[in-house]
């Protein structure tokens, strides 16, 4: 496949997407409450958040599928409200659970989508790149989940767009298929594409994204590189455990080195930047109070912890 250069060299300046206060309401429900952010040229930008945080709505406003109630965005040099057709020429879109004409073959549907644009790239190498070579003559009906998702990405790339939007590209895929897809996304970045993706998987965001915007309840609550986000916790370790026969509330915040405490159902969470001290102190504390600790685990703090830290809820229960 060709590089992302050529005709799009004029996008070499740093910012390629400038989101200016997008708002979307569904009746009285405020889905997106005025978000601002910039996406840099050539990066993988992640919108992370639980279901219903407004990630998909934000993305769909950017690609012209929903009309914002307020605000706008500039993609490349085009305003998404006034020059949508121009915008559509330089963006590629993969929607959540794309459904296509089941009775067409992989090759046929790619040719059809290619015809919707003023120009397109050769179909054959694109099929090879998306690891669909053996399936080129197969009907879409018979593809696996991962193959369908790769086809959806191929459709997003058929006109050689500069920016690619991927909405939850790996949701519902098995671990093997997810890894395959990650490789494809990273390859796209190597080819010079800018990628905006939404996900509610921590590990995915951490591995793929150069920068992450964390969204919750329609608002953007943090934006930074994954490393910086975790650093902002000011505690690099997390300690998890359960207490057998816990009857009343126990306050663990007095334990040495603990920066923050949390609790998810019956699992206690302590954040600390001095893991050894905290662990020793916890054991003492438990012995004194006659508590029986089980399932003790220590780990490096993750983006999940950043989210819990900021919202008090985990990504899954939010």
């Amino acid at each position: 496949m060709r590089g992302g250069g050529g005709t799009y060299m004029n996008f070499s300046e740093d910012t390629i997407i400038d989101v200016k206060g997008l708002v979307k309401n569904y009746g009285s429900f405020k889905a997106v409450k005025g978000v601002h952010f910039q996406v840099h040229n050539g990066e993988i930008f992640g919108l992370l958040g639980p279901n219903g945080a407004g990630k998909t709505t934000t993305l769909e406003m950017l690609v012209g599928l929903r009309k914002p109630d307020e605000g706008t965005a500039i993609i490349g040099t085009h305003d998404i409200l006034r020059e949508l057709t121009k915008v559509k020429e330089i963006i590629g879109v993969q929607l959540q659970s794309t459904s296509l004409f089941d009775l067409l073959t992989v090759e046929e549907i790619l040719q059809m989508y290619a015809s919707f644009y003023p120009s397109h790239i050769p179909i054959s190498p694109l099929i090879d790149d998306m690891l669909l070579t053996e399936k080129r003559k197969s009907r879409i009906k018979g593809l696996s989940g991962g193959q369908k998702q790769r086809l959806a990405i191929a459709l997003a790339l058929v006109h050689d767009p500069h920016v690619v939007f991927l909405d939850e590209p790996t949701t519902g895929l098995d671990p093997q298929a997810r890894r395959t897809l990650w490789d494809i996304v990273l390859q796209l970045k190597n080819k010079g594409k800018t990628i905006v993706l939404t996900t509610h998987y921590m590990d995915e965001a951490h591995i793929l994204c150069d920068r992450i915007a964390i969204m919750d309840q329609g608002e953007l609550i943090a934006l930074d590189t994954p490393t910086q986000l975790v650093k902002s916790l000011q505690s690099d370790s997390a300690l998890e455990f359960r207490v057998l026969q816990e009857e009343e509330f126990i306050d663990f915040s007095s334990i040495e080195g603990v920066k923050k405490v949390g609790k998810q159902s019956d699992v206690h969470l302590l954040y600390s930047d001095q893991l050894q001290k905290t662990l020793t102190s916890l054991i003492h504390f438990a012995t004194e109070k006659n508590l029986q600790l089980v399932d003790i685990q220590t780990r490096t703090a993750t983006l999940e912890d950043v989210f819990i830290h900021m919202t008090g809820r985990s990504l899954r229960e939010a």
Partner: protein
Amino acid sequence: MKAYWQLTLAQLRIFLRNRQVLMWTLIFPILLMSMLGLFLGKGNGISLTIGVIDHDHTSFSNEFVNAISNNEAIHLVLQKDEKKAQTSLKNGDFQLVVTIPKGYESSLKNSGSKPLPFTIPVYYNDTNFAVSQVGLALVNGVIDEVSKQRVSYAPVVEMESHGIKALHLKYIDFLVPGIVAMMIMSNNMNGVAGQIAAWRERGILRRMQGTTLKASTFIAAQITARLLMNGLQALIVLLVAHLLFGVEIRGSWFTLISFIILGTLAFMAIGFIIAGIAKTPESAAPIAGVLSFPMLFLGGVFFPIRNMPEFLQPIVKLLPISHLSTALREIMNVGAAWSSLGLEAAILGGWVVAAFVIASYTFKWE
């Protein structure tokens, strides 16, 4: 332009690969045609089975029997046993039973100048009154003829009857254009409504909206593909009707195809409106049903419009299906040309324009 061809091609591929739909949309009208044409058609024609019992066995009685059997509409069965004949009459195998009593010939020969009429008993089944009446009239005609011959009757006044459209139309000739009209209606109206609503529900249209494709290109391709497919289906049904049932196509193929196209466009446009209104594919089918069902009965598909109650006629006369079935019928049965079908063409054309204007406002990608 490339997008238009690709979308048309895609739609044609989908049609051809959806074998079941393709098969059943063809089988249904042909089946309907066979059932209505062969079974119902019998009752509607004037074919009578008459049992004749000849007790006289003379050359005169033979002549009488021949006179009856010479009538094309009558199928004559000679019977010996009167009881058997009566049973057959009750069972409906015979519509009439005619008995020629002994002494028929001698009575006629000895009639002299002032003859006493000889009585020939004719039995009919009064549960099948209408057919019996026709049969009685026919037999009466034969008897009348015989009587007139015997008395050397010379008529003073004669009737000369002229059929206005002396085309010997059978019910099937009336039926086939109606069925083709029905097929055009259901394939296009229900087909478009169901498919577009389903594509919207599944997000197929939404994904296309994410590209630079224009709605007008998409709709144009839909229309082209459907015109080709549904036009072809209509022609296949016509061909089957022509070859298997001997239905004549008296008008020009050009006129016939023009009206098939006009009808297809009108119902497709209505289908697009329904697809726009329907929120889910599940609601598209009943909406299309509500519109198509009354049209089937009121639109002159199965019964002539003039048989309908007075108060319904003005409504019926605005329905697109009425004009499509009338036009097809005129072309096929009578051989009407374009010039005599101006009203039908104008009303169908009006539907096409109006419906497409409304459809363009109600069309939604999602």
